[in-house]
């Protein structure tokens, strides 16, 4: 589904990604966690085709759509227009399945996207990406600036989509706890390199990961229904 092979991306002199390799298989949910500035957004923008790598390669089999960090909606356009523009690459501009998934948006369809709350905007951002009928959904910082309950609802929707349609999801998150709960497999990106990878269960037991990303606590992350 997604194969990244020794990807090197530079912004002028600065190296943002230094030989990153990872894979996402069809139908998988994979997490990519790491601190601010690790290069997570750079990676997503590269596989979305916006940045040309300096070295290495990546391959996307099928369609990829990104839910960008900070929503990045067309603020002065309506919800409906935002959604329909998400279908730019495909023929089908019918928003009904998005309104079925997010009933709240149906009532908001003629509102200007910039006037919505953070949670509603995030729904529009996800909906817009889904309009492209992607095989792989890359979600960048879903939880940023949102109340926990809103995040949980959105996360549930994503898991449901993954289960029902087999759409793969690459979940990029600073909130490692959330990401490891939702995704069975994860990579940790630090300073442009994959520091460690494995099943979420393994990672949540790894002391270094726990200390850096999970608050160092001894409580269980695994045991959620999504784990193998």
């Amino acid at each position, binding site marked *: 589904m997604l194969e990244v092979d020794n990807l090197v991306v530079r912004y002028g002199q600065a190296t943002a990604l230094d030989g990153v390799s990872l894979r996402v298989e069809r139908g998988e949910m994979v997490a990519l966690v790491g601190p601010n500035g690790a290069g997570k957004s750079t990676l997503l923008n590269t596989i*979305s085709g*916006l940045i040309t790598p300096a070295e290495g390669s990546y391959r996307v089999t099928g369609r990829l*759509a*990104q839910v*960008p960090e*900070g*929503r*990045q*909606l*067309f*603020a*002065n*356009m309506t919800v409906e*227009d935002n959604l*329909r*523009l*998400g279908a*730019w*690459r495909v023929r089908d*501009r019918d928003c009904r399945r998005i309104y079925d998934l997010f009933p709240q948006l149906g009532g908001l369809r003629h509102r200007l*996207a*910039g006037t919505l709350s953070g949670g509603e905007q995030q729904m529009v951002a996800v909906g*817009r990406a889904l309009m*492209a009928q992607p095989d792989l959904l890359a979600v960048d910082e879903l939880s940023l600036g949102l109340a926990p309950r809103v995040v949980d609802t959105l996360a549930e929707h994503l898991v449901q989509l993954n289960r029902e349609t087999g759409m793969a999801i690459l979940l990029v998150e600073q909130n490692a706890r959330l990401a490891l709960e939702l995704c069975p497999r994860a990579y940790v990106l630090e300073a442009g390199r994959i520091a460690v990878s494995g099943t979420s269960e393994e990672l949540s037991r790894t002391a270094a990961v726990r200390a850096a990303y999970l608050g160092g606590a001894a409580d269980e992350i695994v045991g959620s229904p999504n784990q193998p």
Partner: protein
Amino acid sequence: MTLFLQYALSGVATGCTFALVATGFVVIYRVSRVVNFAQGIFAVIAGMATSSLLSRGVPHGLAEALAVVLAALVGLVVGIIALGRRGTPPLASLIITLGLGIGSYAAIIMAWGDQPVSFTGLPGLARAGGVSIQYQFLLVVVVTAITFGLLSLFFDHTYLGKGLTACSSNPYAARLVGIDVHRMGLLAFTLGGALGGLAGVLITPLQPVSFDSDVGIAINGFAAAIFGGLLRPGTALVGALVLGVAEALVAGYYRASFESGVALVVMLGLMVWQASRRSPAVEEEMV
């Protein structure tokens, strides 16, 4: 009183042509963030081309239409050169349009000479209520109204129009969604060329154009566009009409040479006023 109306009506007509030029500025700026300093050139080229075609026996209507198409093509070429490769900063593009505008003087002089050019528009006068107004003025107003209507339909009700709007709203998100922002910029320049060309075709029967008329036309169009923050064509239309009427009154009651001064003073005043309201003269995006 009738003299006042005469001046005002002729001001409305010139205001309409300013509005068309202003919309060209707005369309290009909204999509590519480039202020197109060659905008006036499109009008000059179209006016002169119409005159040439008419003198070769091309019928009215067809000559004007061809001239607008030519102006659109020139707009596309300006866009190709100014926008350059993907990733060219808008400020660099702006300077290139300035250079292209000045550089085109030579091309215009070689093609049409350096003397003012005009041609007869719609002949005859309409009379109503003691006021006579040239049919050409009415033509200008009608064509402008139709154009604005079509543009509004295009931007608000077609998918492509919304794609163009998206490019100015959030270029990053537009690229994510698959819109080729660079290509949309070229489309905007072509549209800007056509609008400038339309303005030129309408204004030349009223005011002869020569190779350096672009400055006056562009200043007026730009002043009107700035009134709408370079983003809102509707507001630019209002500004353009006010400007046209103001200039006509100044020229009629005072001295014609002060006409362009009005535009500059208005523009300066607007920018100072907008700055003092602590909102930028050019609007930032919301998200």
